[in-house]
């Protein structure tokens, strides 16, 4: 079989086998435009590979664990990582490997190449989705090229592609991908050209950076931007950024490097080159019959065209999808974000929670309390927005590390890297350590257990620790006495759990760190350590940001609780019937009538019960115990030693009960959510992403949580 095809051999009929990018390059080459030499690995090769190796059905099994509609973006990322790991551990069959290897070695004997995706639906007609599939630059030698071909294939199932599956026409059953292997042109300046400005049909836009255009594409390097007149090729305006750095080829692909003073002072290209770029873009426009988005680079005096695809407008019409795509950050981009998050945003968020807690709500009159509720709600919204805009993208640091770790180490468990990120100094772990300290006092002195059961006065040090924990667990409680009683009960349960549990046979952090560094060439280790440090900070924040945000939200809840207390005093109204949102309105207006609740659902004709529920394996291990379903904050204090915690989503105010439990089941899915993080920290089996978990499972059901397979077996006493 001829898996490889050269640009000269490609004709229009090959589109379903070479993809949009492959065909576009072939047509440009045929028209005499200056495109780098390239080979295309036909989509048939992908199909053969996934069929012969059995990967096709493994991918389908992974993607059919639950319906796409029920998947959160984090779960899509997890699924994409698992699939990527399957590709990494599945070699290309021998015959095929030899043929591709021979062809590639012949075409690119010693030159560096770019290995790019050429999806069959992408770039083909009206659709264009940049950045959903992977491309790798500066890949040398046949073995490395074949390695990267598998990574490009895997990116057919990237999280972004899964998210855009409908728009891409991604058919889970038989989608395939072609791969373009292109000689890399290491230009001194690179950029993109939009042959027609979507805002003004008479103009074109050129963006340019020094070095390679990887930095421009992912937003790490801010480009110079020109508007040009399409007819006269003349420059209409020029926006100059603060030029600081450029992407250059390096051992690990590309690297952000500071510019020399000379480069920083001058635009990457001159007016003659701009006119040349526009010229070629207009040629591409004529060739393809529509406005084009052309990637180009300049080496010496020669302009090279790297790819061309149709400009589509409104591709970010769906805001949540656009946001999701913005999560894909490069290492350099994340470093910048880290400074902002750690140096500025987190300290401000902590301060916000602290300041709010100092306000005495009981001292406010009704109108001021109503305004305080509204102010706090607005603050909480602001911080929630910040959370989505900055904290979640920063969490991508842990993901980026995971990918680098998996590429280097090729572990059997694609989430092995998480153990390397845990450092034990997360806020919630500190809080749990305090509970463990109290539990330990009870274990050492059985008399304390008796005192708790009888409600007697406790020894001063124990009492002090309990007050401290009560403050940390529910900073909103006004009746501290009642709260320490609940803490005491919980500590009693915690004392019945064996201390110092660890996951079964999890390798130590040192082992994993050595394994990771040992898999990398020596000159890449300093960079790898820097990335690990960033990933640890990103991972820690994934839990801590929730704790801090939880403190602000707790202050909203405290103000609403105070409002309810006052409303309950008004004889005419039941404060319980009011939604949180209505409390402030009711405080301001005694005649306020809340909107009626919707009618209840029709009665079932058949009793449907869960028997075995599928989720994601988020913490290894197996445990059996009675379910404790958490529907309200108070339910937390009813948890008993050995219960299986079942909840919608573990929020920061809940994690303190985790050490008392024997397993965790969560409706919300993901490997890096803090429920899964805390469960792993304590070596507890954890299954996340179980749809309707808190509705289908009842407190008292006997659950067996299989954290290896990601399933929960339910036994119910009839």
């Amino acid at each position, binding site marked *: 079989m001829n898996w490889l095809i050269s640009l000269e051999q490609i004709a229009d009929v090959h589109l379903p086998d070479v993809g949009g990018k492959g065909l576009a390059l072939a047509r440009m080459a045929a028209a005499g435009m200056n495109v780098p030499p390239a080979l295309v690995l036909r989509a048939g090769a992908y199909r053969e590979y996934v069929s012969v190796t059995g990967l*096709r059905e493994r991918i389908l099994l992974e*993607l059919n664990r639950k319906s796409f509609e029920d998947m959160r973006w984090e779960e899509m990322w997890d699924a994409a990582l698992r699939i990527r790991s399957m590709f990494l551990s599945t070699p290309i069959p021998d015959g095929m490997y030899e043929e591709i290897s021979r062809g590639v070695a012949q075409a690119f004997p010693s030159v560096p190449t770019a290995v790019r995706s050429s999806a069959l639906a992408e770039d083909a007609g009206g659709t264009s989705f940049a950045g959903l599939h992977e491309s790798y630059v500066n890949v040398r030698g046949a073995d490395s090229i074949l390695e990267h071909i598998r990574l490009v294939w895997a990116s057919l199932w990237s999280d972004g592609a899964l998210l855009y599956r409908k728009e891409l026409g991604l058919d889970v*059953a038989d989608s395939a991908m072609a791969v373009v292997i292109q000689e890399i042109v290491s230009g001194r300046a690179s950029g993109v050209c939009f042959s027609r400005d979507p805002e003004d049909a008479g103009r074109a836009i050129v963006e340019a950076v020094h070095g390679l255009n990887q930095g421009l594409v992912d937003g790490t390097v801010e480009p110079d931007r020109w508007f040009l007149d399409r007819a006269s090729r003349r420059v209409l305006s020029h926006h100059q950024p603060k030029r600081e750095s450029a992407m250059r080829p390096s051992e690990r692909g590309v690297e952000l490097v500071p510019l020399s003073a000379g480069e920083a002072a001058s635009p990457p290209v001159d007016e003659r080159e701009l006119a040349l770029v526009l010229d070629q873009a207009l040629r591409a426009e004529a060739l393809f019959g529509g406005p084009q988005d052309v990637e180009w680079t300049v080496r010496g005096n020669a302009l090279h065209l790297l790819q061309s695809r149709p400009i589509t407008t409104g591709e970010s019409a769906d805001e949540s999808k656009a946001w999701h795509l913005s999560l894909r950050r490069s290492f350099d981009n994340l470093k910048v974000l880290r400074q902002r998050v750690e140096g500025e945003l987190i300290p401000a968020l902590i301060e916000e929670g602290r300041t709010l807690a100092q306000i005495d709500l009981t001292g406010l009159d009704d109108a001021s309390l109503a305004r305080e509720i509204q102010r706090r709600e607005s603050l909480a919204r602001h911080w929630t927005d910040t959370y989505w805009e900055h904290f979640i993208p920063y969490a991508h640091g842990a993901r980026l590390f995971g990918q680098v770790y998996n590429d280097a180490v090729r572990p059997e468990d694609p989430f092995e890297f998480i153990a390397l990120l845990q450092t034990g100094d997360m806020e919630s772990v500190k809080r749990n350590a305090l509970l463990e300290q109290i539990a330990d006092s009870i274990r050492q002195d059985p008399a304390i257990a008796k005192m708790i059961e009888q409600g007697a006065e406790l020894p001063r040090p124990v009492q002090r620790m309990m007050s401290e924990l009560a403050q940390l667990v529910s900073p909103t409680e006004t009746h501290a006495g009642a709260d320490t009683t609940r803490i005491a009960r919980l500590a009693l349960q915690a004392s019945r759990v064996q201390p110092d549990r660890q996951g079964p046979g999890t390798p130590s952090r040192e082992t994993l760190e050595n394994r990771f560094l040992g898999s990398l060439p020596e000159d890449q280790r300093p960079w790898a350590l820097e990335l690990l440090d960033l990933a640890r900070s990103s991972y820690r924040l994934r839990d801590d940001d929730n704790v801090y945000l939880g403190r602000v939200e707790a202050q909203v809840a405290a103000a609403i609780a105070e409002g309810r207390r006052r409303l309950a005093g008004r004889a005419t109204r039941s404060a319980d019937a009011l939604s949180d949102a209505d409390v402030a309105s009711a405080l301001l207006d005694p005649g306020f009538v809340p909107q009626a609740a919707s009618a209840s659902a*029709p009665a079932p004709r058949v009793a449907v019960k*869960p028997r*075995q529920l*599928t989720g994601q394996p988020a913490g290894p291990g197996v445990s059996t115990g009675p379910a404790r379903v958490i529907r309200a904050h108070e339910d937390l204090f009813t948890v008993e030693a050995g219960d299986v915690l079942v909840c919608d989503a573990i929020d920061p105010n809940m994690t303190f009960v985790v050490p008392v439990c024997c397993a965790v089941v969560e409706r919300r899915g993901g490997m890096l959510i803090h429920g899964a993080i805390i469960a792993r920290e304590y070596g507890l089996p954890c299954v996340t992403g179980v749809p309707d978990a808190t*509705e289908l499972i009842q407190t008292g059901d006997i659950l067996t949580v299989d954290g290896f397979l990601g*399933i929960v077996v339910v036994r119910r006493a009839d």
Partner: protein
Amino acid sequence: MLDSRQDAWRQLRALLQGQALAVLATSHEGHPYCSLIAFVVSDDLRTILFGTSRNTRKFANITSDPRVSVLIDSRGNTDADFHQACAATAVGREVKLPEAEYRALRGKYLERHPHLRDFVASPTFELVALRIETYYLVSRFQHVMELHLET
């Protein structure tokens, strides 16, 4: 009903109405015995009806022990079954149906399996009715729901 519960019910109905053949498990002195059967299901999914000659082993087994299990599945004997196929295990017992209900279901049986007309007309033919108490529905490889039919 919750969405996931309604989904389970819809999925079960589609499976039972879509399949023509199923595997019947009977027992003889405590030993299980499986047979392939052509079946039809009542609209409320409570009754599964299958035809047999009265001389078969399965008929003899049911006569001495009416407890049965039936497996209905949508497998196509390809790799895709692992993510695509679903299966229902029905548990119940053989019952004698009231005449009117029997007649209606017999008509339905012939409609579903018109090519079995001669078989059904044979004097040794028996249409056996199974009253199902519980279905265990397996989908997505390992997702299992129990559907208990209220009597």
